[in-house]
């Protein structure tokens, strides 16, 4: 590995460590009651990071450790905000991180060895369908959408996240030949998936799934016409839902002019904007903002809370970090020699990128608010674990590609 790269890896790890130490020390001071607890948790966090970092770096050949560093950094910033907002959530998110990072390694290895072997679109479709069916049948409502499953009355997760992975595999599997064999069947299958999502009122999810399919079809077949057609369809559907679903209408109206009804439907976005405005260039400083004024701050609006305390520059830095991940994913799919692998990585990247754009866009009022989470930063176990898994897959694809190069 070239010394320059190694150098930069080390610097990144250092940045990660310093950021963590500074933030968490500050938070220990800020929240003196739990001070010691925070300090120890921070140590655990850093320990887990470095453990996985070293495993990745030293023991797994050709691993693209960025795929671990950047998400961990995002998690770290998210943890900082969560700790400040609600220490209970902070603790749980830390556990999710531990699970996520191990899963990263696990899925990297799994993908590296097995990805090419499992190749059946049917299998993946069924898996996707099942996981999306679960919430329709057994789902519990949280925040307006019924896409949560409760186990033992305590442990909850979102099956749509798991479905997300299988869905990308399904699409990649179907499209690897570069052409669509049975268009009708594909369309039907995709629509059935969308319908399941709509049944659980996860409109944001439905949109993401649909757009990802559009992009993947375009990438595989180069057919601009399919893409355009699909795009028009979703615009029409969106328009229809605006008229017939009051829920959607409220969201769009709140997006267009929240000031009309600040205490009512515009409340969320108004509070989000107030927070972002307050931050100025450098932010108010950790602990000096008012995330408590923002609804849903631990999940959807965590970006606003972060931007309030770390400013415009902090917010832009976050956007850039997410963009870097998208770039990294694209790079992996460009380097792959196998179209199947290339499609998988492209699909995962597209889904990820769309999700990030959707949530940040909604929070800053570029587009209406939707119910998707900000991967790695929002509080949420399913989201974090699956996101790490997805990046693990990307890593696996990368390693697999490199091995081929070396072997031939």
């Amino acid at each position, binding site marked *: 590995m070239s010394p320059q790269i190694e150098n930069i890896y080390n610097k990144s790890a250092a940045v990660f460590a310093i950021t963590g130490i500074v933030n968490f020390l500050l938070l220990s001071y800020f929240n003196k009651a739990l001070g010691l607890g925070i300090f120890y948790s921070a140590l655990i966090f850093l320990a887990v990071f470095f453990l996985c970092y070293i495993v990745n770096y030293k023991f797994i050949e050709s691993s693209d450790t960025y795929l671990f560093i950047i998400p961990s950094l995002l998690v770290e910033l998210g943890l900082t905000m969560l700790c400040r907002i609600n220490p209970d959530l902070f603790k749980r998110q830390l556990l999710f991180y531990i699970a996520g990072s191990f899963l990263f390694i696990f899925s990297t290895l799994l993908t590296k060895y097995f990805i090419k072997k499992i190749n059946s679109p049917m299998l993946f479709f069924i898996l996707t369908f099942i996981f999306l069916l679960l919430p329709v049948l057994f789902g519990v409502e949280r925040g307006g959408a019924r896409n949560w499953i409760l186990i033992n009355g305590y442990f909850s997760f979102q099956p749509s996240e798991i479905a997300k992975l299988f869905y990308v595999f399904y699409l990649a599997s179907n499209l690897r030949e570069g052409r669509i064999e049975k268009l009708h069947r594909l369309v039907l299958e995709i629509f059935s998936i969308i319908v399941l999502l709509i049944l659980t009122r996860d409109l944001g999810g439905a949109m993401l799934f649909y757009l990802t399919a559009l992009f993947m079809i375009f990438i595989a077949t180069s057919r601009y016409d399919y893409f355009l057609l699909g795009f028009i369809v979703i615009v029409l559907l969106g328009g229809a839902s605006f008229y017939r679903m009051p829920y959607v209408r409220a969201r769009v109206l709140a997006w267009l002019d929240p000031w009309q009804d600040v205490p009512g439907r515009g409340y969320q976005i108004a509070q989000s904007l107030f927070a972002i405005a307050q931050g100025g260039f450098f932010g108010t400083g950790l602990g000096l903002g*008012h995330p408590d004024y923002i609804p849903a701050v631990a999940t959807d609006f965590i970006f606003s809370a972060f931007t309030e305390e770390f400013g415009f520059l902090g917010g832009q830095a976050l956007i850039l970090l997410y963009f870097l991940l998208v770039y990294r994913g694209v790079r992996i799919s460009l380097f792959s020699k196998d179209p199947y692998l290339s499609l998988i990585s*492209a699909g995962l990247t597209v889904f990820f990128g769309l999700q990030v754009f959707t949530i940040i866009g909604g929070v800053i*009022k570029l587009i209406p608010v939707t119910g998707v989470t900000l991967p790695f930063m929002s509080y949420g176990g399913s989201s974090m674990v699956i996101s790490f898994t997805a990046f693990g897959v990307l890593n696996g694809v990368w390693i697999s590609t490199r091995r081929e190069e070396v072997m031939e």
Partner: protein
Amino acid sequence: MDIYETGGGDGIIKMNNLKKNIKTTFYIFCLLFLSLMSYLTYFQLYERQKLIESSYNRRLWEQESKIKRGTIYDRNGVTLAETIDLGTEKKRIYISGEAFGPLLGYSSMKIGRSGLESALNGELLGIAQKEPLSLLRQKIYGLSQGNDVYLTVDAELQKKAYSLLEGKRGAVVALEPETGAVLIMVSSPGFDSNKVEEQWEKLKGDRGLPLLNRALTGLYPPGSAFKVVTLSGVLENFTGIEKEKFETKGYIKVGGRVIKDDNSIKPGEYSLKEAFAVSSNAIFAGLGLRLGRDKLLKIAGDFGFNSKIPFEMYVKKSQFPGHSLMDSDVQLAEDSIGQGKVLTTPLLMASIAQIIANHGVYHSPYIIDKVKTPLGQVKVNNLRTVRKTVISPQTADIVRDYMVEVVEKGTGKAARMKDIKVAGKTGTAENPHGEPHSWFIGFAPAQDPAIAIAVIVENGGSGGKVAAPIAREIIEYYFKIRNRK
């Protein structure tokens, strides 16, 4: 399209396309993310300020609740409004009752801010700091206390003036002739700032409009009190006019209208001084016509009509009509006697008195005497006052003498005091809402004025009968407490 052999090249071409599409997709994502960053930037540059100050933004209130709002004092150090610390919260207490309500205003999270509490908000919270050293200090220790503000107003005079209005609708403004400092600013009916929140609905619905500060935002026809301006105009423009004689038949016909003198005026010949003292509408309408609209407009403008008055709070512009499509002599005639379309604020009328009292030199009014920072630093009001020569001292002195005549022998007899010469002018302003407004403007002592005053009682009737005695009592009281010290 498959003109290539399978395997090898074919797969490569397909891969090529795949890669090309991925690149295209990537560019789309670049655009998407760029739009995020651009919008955030736009937001930062343009939308931000509005949002921070929005009344829905709880952060502002939160910030302020941490700061102990400064105290407002009168010119002698009497406390008018202060914040006391009740441990869990801070409460703003107003000591002086209804007389000060419209002037001080209120500062409430529920209903907002008004009056001086609003205009001085920056100072009272200490966020108007400009010196880098205090700014630095602030940043390190955080803001904890605002600045104290000392007004030029005299609390005792204020209370006296308010009580004399007896809850009737009206206003009193008194200025120091040599400086323009505001001694009294009363608007009646007033309200108790302590009770604003609980009485909000009642106050809002009260026909007497207690929440209005009539001194600054009430616009009234000045009536005959405006003759001071017309007089100044003719004196400045026609040399020797004080020696002329004028005749009145008890009325004047202009265009199709008849403008009548007050019944008490006997038709006959009058000197300028006498005409002014008895306040003959016919003669002054004639003078106005003789002066012409341009010159009258100019002199009115010099006195402060149609311009923004520099003051620490918002003052409505007084209006003297300029040329219009329907210029007519009738309009001009009516305007010259302070009727027609002329509208003025009580503050401006007090300034007119101040100008005459100060030998023709205008000092713009101001109400903040000094500001004291928590560190003890005293900041004297910088933009204290704008000076302007409106009329020559000779003219001013003539007007002054005429105004003394008004009080000695004319319509202002009710303002006459035993040992101090008072100069004044009454006004009985016709208006469409009922009884005429009762005006009195003046100053005392005539030769070396210490106080210039304007009093208006809405729909009070005759200026001489209602406003003049009030002015006299205030002036008497002024001298009484001055001699006490």
